[in-house]
């Protein structure tokens, strides 16, 4: 627990200095604030930009952040030193993961404020965001673990991130894509956020998210067994 807190604190210290990751954290909340107040088109669904960018935030920010942090630590040998200092791999991953989850949830609170969600809606929205962020963290951890360098991590992350963050948006315009996207957790999260006022969760939706997370976890286990952390 002590090591996990130390890693969490170290990550917080680095937040302002790691511009690549910092931009990921603030980009979508800022975009949402600007777009939500700047663009008001008649007939546009309520909270259109909040829902759209919240989904993209889930598919992009945790995934890129955790991949970038793990890959950088691997490339610069800091992770190897940590492992040699008796830090357990799970302590490291929980430290970094909890930090990203924490910062992403602050972004989620911004979405909540901009969307003017009331108490019950706000709680459900934050729970949905937590589930989406966790799924993305698992995928990102798997990519970061199997990448030896930051360059390699980026080349894998970009297409994966594009699938998860853009599919929900593209499914708005194309029914075929919508049918396929249904099996992706980010689409399920997007559907839930869009139905927030009148949320009706069916078992299949939950099952799809759970299966997505299990697949991501399996990928992570395979990547960890094959490549290790150091």
């Amino acid at each position, binding site marked *: 627990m002590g090591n996990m*807190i130390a890693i969490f604190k170290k990550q917080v210290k680095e937040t302002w200095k790691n511009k690549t990751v910092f931009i990921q954290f603030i980009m979508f909340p800022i975009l949402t604030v600007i777009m939500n107040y700047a663009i008001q088109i008649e007939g546009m669904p309520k909270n259109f930009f909040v829902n759209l960018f919240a989904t993209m935030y889930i598919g992009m920010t945790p995934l890129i952040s955790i991949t970038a942090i793990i890959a950088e630590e691997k490339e610069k*040998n*800091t992770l190897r030193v940590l492992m*040699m200092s008796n830090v357990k791999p799970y302590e490291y991953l929980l430290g970094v993961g909890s930090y990203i989850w924490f910062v992403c949830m602050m972004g989620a609170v911004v979405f909540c404020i901009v969307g003017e969600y009331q108490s019950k809606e706000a709680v459900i929205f934050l729970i949905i965001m937590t589930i989406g962020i966790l799924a993305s963290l698992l995928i990102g951890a798997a990519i970061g673990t199997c990448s030896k360098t930051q360059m390699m991590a980026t080349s894998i992350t970009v297409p994966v991130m594009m699938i998860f963050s853009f599919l929900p948006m593209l499914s708005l315009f194309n029914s075929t894509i919508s049918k396929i996207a249904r099996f992706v957790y980010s689409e399920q999260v997007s559907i839930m956020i869009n139905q927030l006022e009148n949320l009706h969760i069916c078992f299949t939706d939950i099952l799809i998210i759970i299966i997505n997370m299990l697949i991501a976890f399996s990928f992570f286990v395979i990547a960890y067994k094959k490549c290790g952390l150091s």
Partner: protein
Amino acid sequence: MIDYAIIVKDMSHEFSKKRVLNKITFQVEQGEIFGLLGPSGAGKTTLIKILTGQLHQNSGYSQLLGTDTNCLGAKEYKQIGVMIDNFGLYERLSVYSNLAFYADIYHVSKSKIPDILKSIGLYDAKNIAVLKLSKGMKNRLSLARAFMNDVKILFLDEPTSGLDPVTTREIHDILIEQKKKGVTIFLTTHNMFEAESLCDHVALLNQGNIIEFGKPADICRKYNHLNRLQIMLKNGVNVELENGSKAALSIKEYLEQDMIETIHSTEPTLESVFIELTGRGLNEYGKYDCYI
């Protein structure tokens, strides 16, 4: 009875059917500086990984502070400090923040940090980001991180590689200071002069085999095949004599006439010994890394 900090017996290790370490055996006494010498690709870093429990050997046995290296736990890790070849420092954080982070990881008091920084000459740079430090300063910081835990063993992977002589000397002084405190130091290097001046014992590692082991002076004497004395006279003439009783008379005469500028024995350096044993110099191997 000698207390050994490290015992390695018949250790072998392979990567993808390529044998990196081949039945190596040696011991490191507690409180000594031990040098593992060898070119790049000789298996030095693999050996450090095995000894620090990061890798399990395919066969053989290794023991660190009385514990099998395959079973190292929190207690043993608290006694080990590691400095690897390319720093492993958080470059965006300051010098102080780097040590503060590791103080948390090692569960040691942060109040030690100013004294540690003073001892390595980085106190004035404590608020500077590691990114802005010179290579020598990064090396010193990396070293400080390795011993801030009051360790019993320090593993140093090429601690002075690429440094200027002054910084190298400063790092040597830090290591000697640690040795005086009773710390066992296990260092890898391909700098023969470093090994000769610092190490109590050395092992020459080549392609996974230990080809020589002992005190640096003993190894040099062992391979002193010429066994001659080289005398440079003040008039510029070089004289070579057999190193034996017969030379005594000639030397006496030169001394009486105040003719001697320098006297050297023909003992080889560790580098010459390495070349003799392998047919190639230590620095040459770097050029052929991809073939090793």
